[in-house]
């Protein structure tokens, strides 16, 4: 547990989603670990909490998650992997918000693929947000990191 509630919630949600829906084995990322050839996705939220979630996954790890999610021995085309990371991002954001603000719902935008710079931007905007969290996890194939910046409107 940390003293940052949103970080704890984000970490718990991330682990729960990855283990339950993607059957992933997860460990804490080594300090200082950096992404290698990541695919990145962004989703915005508004309502009880307004802000942004970005998820970055190293491409080999994304490939493995995709196979696990679809129950196939080999992942399909890249479009299927993009579809899956969008769904993953949607689930991470939704699960985190539901746990963080259980009384009220926040509306999520449609997730979209973006560049790593967008993920780094989310991290660098932390000083402008009420709440910020960054969780980095090591999964088979590489690194997965989730960043969120939130501004309470309730």
């Amino acid at each position, binding site marked *: 547990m940390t003293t940052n509630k949103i970080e704890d919630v984000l970490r718990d949600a991330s682990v*729960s*989603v990855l*283990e*339950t*829906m993607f059957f992933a084995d997860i460990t804490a990322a080594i300090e200082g670990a950096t992404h290698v050839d990541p695919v990145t996705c962004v989703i915005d939220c508004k309502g*009880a909490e307004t802000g942004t979630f970005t998820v970055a996954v190293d491409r080999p790890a994304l490939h493995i998650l995709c196979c696990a*999610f*679809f*129950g196939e021995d080999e992942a399909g085309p890249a479009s*299927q992997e993009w*579809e*899956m990371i*969008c*769904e993953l991002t*949607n*689930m991470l*954001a*939704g*699960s985190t*918000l*539901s746990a963080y*603000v*259980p*009384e*009220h*719902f*926040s*509306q*999520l935008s449609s997730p979209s693929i973006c560049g790593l710079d967008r993920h780094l931007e989310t991290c660098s905007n932390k000083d402008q947000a009420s709440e910020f969290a960054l969780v980095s996890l090591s999964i088979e194939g590489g690194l997965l990191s989730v960043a969120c910046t939130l501004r309470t409107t309730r």
Partner: protein
Amino acid sequence: MHMRDILIVDDSRAMRNFLRRALSMTSLEIGVVHEAENGLEALNLLDNQSVEVIFSDINMPVMDGAVFVGELAKNEVKRKIPVIVVSTDSSMERKNQMQSLGAKGYIAKPFSPEQLEQEVVRLLWEASDDDE
């Protein structure tokens, strides 16, 4: 063996595939699995197809899950089909909203095949009680 036909309503193809797969991992006797990308497509499908359970997302284009469940409740036949909402949103506000519109069950993502099965069994058990 009573095979149960199912309708999955979700704009995410990935999620429809996952639900289909999760259902196959349960002990439920699943018959035909119909799919729709939004509430309107689902309503049109139900004009010609009979199903025993509907799984519905909330956030969908064209017609979202809240409007879809509300439209089902207006039809004498369709309102009898139990709807299980499947959503990342597990806030009390949303659950209460969907329940007030007529949804009978709610599964929050992430979920396991076991949780899926438990909810379906509960709903079908309650539905058989209502019929007696």
